[in-house]
């Protein structure tokens, strides 16, 4: 059971592969030994450097700006990630982000907020995953490796934020950048395919009120880090000490 995880997490093997791949890119064509060839690169562009642990992606959501009844962020997420299937049972539909309306029974104050994967620093979903499919990238984005997810849904049980969904039916017409299919668990990826291209997540871009801020928590000059340093913010269920990447204001 531990074999695939060991293989994937073995840093020396990884570095060797990555280094040789870079070598192949710079040299053009490489033959290490008879029968052991490396890729001849026809496309000139070099691969990107990848996720860095110097970066910690995070999101700040100002719930005082978030309008009840508005679900632009949910729609943008569904469009970007190709979540468009019709499900027989509404409870089985995938929710990468959902809107929640809250009411304080004492004061009667109502507010609304989007809830999604909180991209924990210490993610319980990663702790419980028996195959190593639930994983956290160096830049703090928590993902499911569908190639080795067996669909046991243990992570769904472990997540305190109900952030994960299971795909119950065969899918077609996926976004080529966002593969998803039956039998795997999935959740918000911070639109990793956009973030890696230097874009913001679709929900952040779509919010008409500008209630969502996305950025690098580790960069003191970033908008999000400056605001977190100067304004009050909350982590949902901070008592769990999971080190959330998503922070809220006004709750």
């Amino acid at each position, binding site marked *: 059971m531990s074999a695939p995880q060991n293989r994937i997490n073995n840093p020396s093997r990884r570095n060797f592969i990555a280094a040789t791949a870079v070598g192949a890119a710079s040299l053009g064509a490489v033959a290490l030994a008879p029968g052991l060839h490396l890729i001849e*690169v026809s*496309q000139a562009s070099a691969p990107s450097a990848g996720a860095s642990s110097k970066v910690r992606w995070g999101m700040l959501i100002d719930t005082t700006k978030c309008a009840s009844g508005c679900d632009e962020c949910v729609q943008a997420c569904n469009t*970007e990630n*190709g979540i*468009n299937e019709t499900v027989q049972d509404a409870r089985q539909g995938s929710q990468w982000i959902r809107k929640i309306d809250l009411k304080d029974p004492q004061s009667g104050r109502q507010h609304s907020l989007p809830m999604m994967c909180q991209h924990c620093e210490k993610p319980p979903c990663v702790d419980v995953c028996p195959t190593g499919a639930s994983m956290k990238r160096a830049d703090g984005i928590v*993902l499911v490796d569908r190639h080795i997810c067996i669909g046991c849904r243990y992570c769904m049980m472990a997540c305190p934020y109900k952030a994960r969904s299971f795909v119950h039916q065969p899918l077609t017409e996926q976004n080529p950048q966002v593969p998803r299919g039956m039998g795997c668990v999935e959740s918000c990826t911070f639109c990793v395919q956009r973030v890696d291209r230097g874009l913001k997540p679709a929900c952040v871009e779509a919010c008409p009120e500008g209630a969502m801020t996305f950025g690098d928590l580790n960069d003191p000059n970033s908008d999000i880090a400056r605001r977190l340093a100067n304004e009050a913010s909350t982590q949902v269920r901070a008592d769990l000490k999971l080190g959330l990447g998503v922070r809220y204001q006004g709750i």
Partner: protein
Amino acid sequence: MKAVALALLLALTSVLALAGAPKPVIRIENPGQCIAPAAEMRKNHMEMLKHQRDRTLRQGIRGEAASLNECINCHAGKTSGTVTGQDGFCQQCHSYVAVKLDCWDCHQPKAGNQHAATGVKP
């Protein structure tokens, strides 16, 4: 007489066995340079894709030469627009060697950007 008949039968069956199943017809509809010679691609494409997928997903390395989307963009049929189906580039060989393809359970097998993030069925 019996021996001759037996020999004939043996010869016939061995010829049939040699003939085997019909070879796959591989159509390259967008000829150009692949990322490696054909012989190497035939032998190693699965290894290339497997290591690339792990680097992309786990380390966030994008834009490598080996990429399933790039395979599709070149090898999708011009009329069908896909690498799957009866005459699909991937399907042809995989049917011949009886290796199940489950890439398309999750990945989009059609070429082009017309499917990029539309969120609706085309």
